[in-house]
């Protein structure tokens, strides 16, 4: 096992008060990305990638 997540990082990840605010932030962020709309792609540009 390699400790890749430091004790301080883990504290932040699991602290309920910090995480409560992260929860609000994440909910809004997810909502804006998902409810932020969707559409077609074909009229915008037609080139292939890479």
């Amino acid at each position, binding site marked *: 096992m390699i400790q890749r997540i430091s004790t301080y990082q883990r504290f932040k990840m699991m602290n309920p008060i910090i995480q409560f605010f992260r929860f609000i932030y994440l909910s809004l962020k997810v909502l804006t990305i998902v409810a932020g709309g969707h*559409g077609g792609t074909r009229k*915008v540009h037609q080139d292939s990638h890479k």
Partner: protein
Amino acid sequence: MSKIVVLGAGISGHVAASHLRRKLSKEHEVLVVSPNSNYQWIPSNIWVGVGRMPYKKILFPLEPLYIRKGIGFKQAMVKTFHPEGDEKEARPYVTIEYVDANKKGQQEKVTYNYLINATGPKLNFEATEGLVPGTNKTYSVCTYTHADHAWQALSALINDMKQGKKAKILIGTGHAKATCQGAAFEYILNVEHELRRNKVRDMADITWISNEFELGDFGMDGMLLSYGSLTMKSKEMVEMIFEDRDIKWILGAGVHKIEDGMAHYENLEGETKTVTYDFAMLIPSFSGHGFKAFNKHHEDITDKLFKGFMIVDANYTPKPYEEWSVQDWPETYQNPSYKNIFAPGIAFAPPHSISKPRKSKNGTEIFPSPPRTGMPSGITAKLVADNIIDSIKTGRESLAHKGSMGNMGAACIASAGFGLTQGSGISITTYPIVPDYNKYPKTQGRQLGKTFGEIGLAGHWLKLALHYAFIYKAKMNPFWWLIPE
């Protein structure tokens, strides 16, 4: 009056049926045909599979809801498609076979004006020799019964570990072209979390096995994402998580045969190897259901409707990876030959994978098939419903609602352990789902910021909140439609 028949009552079929019913007047008929009497919220199967949520909490019976809402329901499986009708029946129809106890085996023609094929995938366990959930110590979490069964086996193993038995646990993909790596990823982290909770973590060796070339590919060619103030590859994020939790990994593995406690696989080097285990959860390959279609003279026209999954407005011209384009992906999910047939969710045939195709030195294709998660399944179903509603209301074909996976975001809130104070989740969002290398050439086809990852307790709360919100929505409780797909 129009009759819209929806095949399947999973995420996409149920979303389509509920929006159609809400927006169309009662003179129009909405009929759902599905073999399962229950609606199930599949993402929460992960918690059923670790014994943290009883399966009854993730499902509810469909028929009472549909009766209340004025949606017809037949507990049956579609068998054949007849988009031109036949000599006796001028209208297009599908044949169905009932599976409910009263009418089991009876067949019927169901006519339609519009058809939505939302039958999702066939869980193609047969494609991997010996991969049968509940045998050879392998399990699945793809349905609630599978997940419940997996938990029974896992809890017995945990008890053995408490008695001093050392155990090997193998979780990942059970076929060279399987998809749904995200579900397996959630499950491995939840299993690891439960072993720690049960104080037997040191008794277990946990291994991830996957057809991905790199960790964090998820069938999406990996992602470059914002992680706090950093920009990180999904590969690095998953590697960090696995190393931190002492999970080993085997990549580029095409599992082709399962025997009691043994998974045989070929890797990209062309080597055949075997890994042993005491408990495995392997995602099978997903395939089309093998439906047949006939024209009005009863000639086979399956090729016009199906290419494994259903053919829609995608560009299926075979071309090399370098020439793939985001424009290949469908926008309206309409079948090009029969314009009143649509296939949202997993039921549509993708133009190609999203991950780079790779072959082993023996020529075996080993790479993930493209995932279509719950969110795009719901979004595509809603836009199909909206186009049908507009077409009915205006009396002419309307395809104004479009939603390509190349212009749509998705959130994957992966549970990494259950528990109100000890749980964890890995929240990942991607925009767009299919990378657009023209629009975002420097960030691997996706928009940074909108493509981000975060680890923590909040992710668990969010996943739990989504569980309750989506079941509330699926039950069509007051103002359900305000909750986005």
